[in-house]
């Protein structure tokens, strides 16, 4: 049995406390009055020199926080045509727009971090189900680590849904503008989608997803423990687990797609992409596998997993390598198809990202593709723990930035920065994640000894 070490518990609680303080600070400093934003913009303009003036004039928005659509461009053209008349109006609109962006930042920072840690747990749950459904012979020694990580699925998903709903109910529609009835009233495109994108239906869908995932997790865990205590020839629990894993994978691939439309894609309600669900899946899958590898190596370094050997690490690292490339394939396929055809209503998605997020947008490709490609290509390096840890940390940072790039351009636009609200949100959820996962790890022996494949897995070598 694993005991949650005092040191680690202190670290996780400290992370949560410091993170919570930073999050509160972020919310307290994000409510700026109209005049404050006005002076701030004036200061910025004087720093940038005269060139900025023309730029701000062209930067007109439709509605409040809506700035990624083609009406934006129409408006901008109209506005430029009679710029003299509307200068004052525009100025007010611009200031209000920036005011909203600043107010959105702590919400989005919280949401990005919450989603990132939740998606790790969900990715691990999918990986775990695949191991069962494919009757993998190498991985059963890692099942308890995976079960520990998936304990975060339920709280993590509820938090993500909670923040999404709270941003509309408590906040001022800070993440999802389609929740704002005023925006919808003036927006034909969102009106057309409102039978799908409306708050009650959003909440119900979210709860159905969460219920399905948590039910699978609950029963898989239950059968796994029951199999430990069962007679040596009694594989009934394993068979049940096998069946529900197959069923869950079908449910998962549908709900994961819909979850990505709901929780991520709808921050840009004018934009859509068919590939998006897969793309988010690849991101969560590779982050999940990376976290399995990191926690396995941590526990192994404490001598708690004597049955895990180099070859298990090698296999995990191979998965990290392969799914990183799979992620890149989907990222590039989505980007290249939109870049190539250059249709205005969908290309704005990448135009805003390229204009305002150049470093994170391109940096994440380096971190999620080039780095793992070169580091994890060599077969010998995949067996060296510190090498895999290094690659894993870079991959996780890269996928945080991936989620950041999906949410932030729609909510804070060019007012982004990775500062106190972002870092403290990461700390808050990292602490919570560690606390939940390592607490779950103490609840059962670290070797799933009843699994019929456990002997094969213990002697696995590659």
């Amino acid at each position, binding site marked *: 049995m694993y005991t949650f070490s005092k040191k680690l518990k202190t670290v996780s609680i400290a992370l949560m406390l410091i993170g919570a303080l930073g999050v509160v600070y972020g919310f307290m400093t994000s409510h700026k009055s109209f005049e404050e934003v006005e002076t701030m913009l004036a200061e910025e303009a004087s720093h940038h020199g005269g060139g900025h003036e023309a730029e701000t004039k062209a930067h007109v928005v439709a509605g409040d926080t809506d700035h990624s659509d083609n009406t934006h461009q129409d408006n901008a053209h109209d506005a430029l045509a009679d710029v003299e008349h509307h200068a004052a109006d525009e100025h007010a609109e611009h200031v209000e727009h920036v005011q909203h962006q600043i107010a959105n930042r702590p919400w989005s920072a919280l949401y990005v971090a919450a989603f990132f840690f939740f998606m790790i747990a969900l990715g691990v749950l999918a990986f775990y189900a695949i191991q069962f459904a494919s009757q993998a012979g190498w991985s059963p020694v890692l099942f308890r680590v995976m079960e520990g990580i998936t304990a975060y699925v339920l709280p993590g998903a509820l938090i993500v849904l909670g923040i999404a709903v709270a941003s509309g109910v408590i906040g001022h529609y800070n993440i999802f503008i389609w929740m704002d009835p005023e925006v919808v009233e003036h927006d034909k495109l969102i009106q057309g989608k409102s039978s799908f994108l409306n708050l009650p239906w959003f909440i119900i869908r979210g709860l159905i997803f969460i219920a399905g995932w948590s039910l699978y997790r609950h029963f898989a865990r239950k059968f796994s423990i029951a199999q430990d205590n069962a007679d040596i020839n009694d594989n009934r629990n394993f068979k049940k687990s096998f069946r529900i894993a197959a069923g869950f994978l079908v449910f998962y691939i549908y709900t994961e797609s819909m979850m990505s439309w709901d929780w991520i894609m709808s921050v840009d309600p004018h934009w859509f992409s068919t590939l998006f669900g897969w793309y988010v899946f690849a991101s969560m899958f590779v982050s999940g596998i990376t976290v399995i590898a990191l926690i396995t190596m941590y526990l192994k370094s404490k001598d708690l997993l004597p049955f895990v050997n180099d070859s298990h690490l090698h296999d995990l690292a191979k998965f990290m390598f392969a799914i990183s490339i799979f992620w890149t394939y989907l990222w*590039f396929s989505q*980007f*290249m198809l939109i*870049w*190539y055809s*250059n249709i205005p209503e969908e290309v704005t998605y990448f135009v805003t990202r390229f204009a305002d997020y150049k470093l994170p947008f391109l940096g994440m490709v380096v971190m999620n593709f080039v780095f793992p490609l070169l580091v994890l*290509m060599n*077969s010998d390096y995949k067996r060296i723990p510190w090498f895999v840890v290094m690659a894993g940390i870079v991959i996780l940072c890269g996928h945080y930035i991936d989620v950041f790039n999906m949410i932030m351009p729609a909510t804070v636009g060019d007012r982004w920065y990775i500062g106190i609200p972002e870092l403290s949100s990461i700390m808050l959820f990292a602490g919570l994640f560690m606390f939940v996962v390592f607490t779950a790890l103490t609840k059962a022996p670290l070797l799933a000894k009843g699994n019929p494949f456990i002997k094969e897995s213990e002697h696995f070598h590659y």
Partner: protein
Amino acid sequence: MEASKVIHAIYTDDDVLMSAVKRVKSERYHIEEIYTPFPVHGLDKAMGLEPTRIAIASFIYGCIGLTVAIVMMNFIMIEDWPQNIGGKPSFSYIENMPAFVPIMFELTVFFAAHLMVITFYLRSRMWPFKKAENPDPRTTDDHFLMEIAIHGNEAELASLLKETGAVEVNLVDKDEAH
């Protein structure tokens, strides 16, 4: 080169072969060659063969393929005749790069795969009309053959091989140098 003598020990089971290899190695005899009808897992390790470097060669070939793709398309599409084709930006390579990535990828794989296969053929001396080097046709079906050079110690070597479970031990004159 004068005709050398070798001993051929024939086995009918890969597990017996593996233990025989370990035994022969521990008695410090040099194994010239082993002929098997299928890959025997762990045989290379037991014989003490060096790991292959073909993956490294393949990586280098892939890099060459990538370079070829970049240089080729940079010359054709950007330098030689930078036409406006459907509004694609042909001002510099990087601006139009996404359109070139499928070709860059395919040529990398093409070079890596084909040159690696050719390297394999060259290094293992395989080509059409090549005379088969098989000392005993049964080794392509269900027998395993271990070849050891002898230097006047044939009696003790033969008894050692018999001991390890060889079903046949033959003394063979080998005239071709290899």
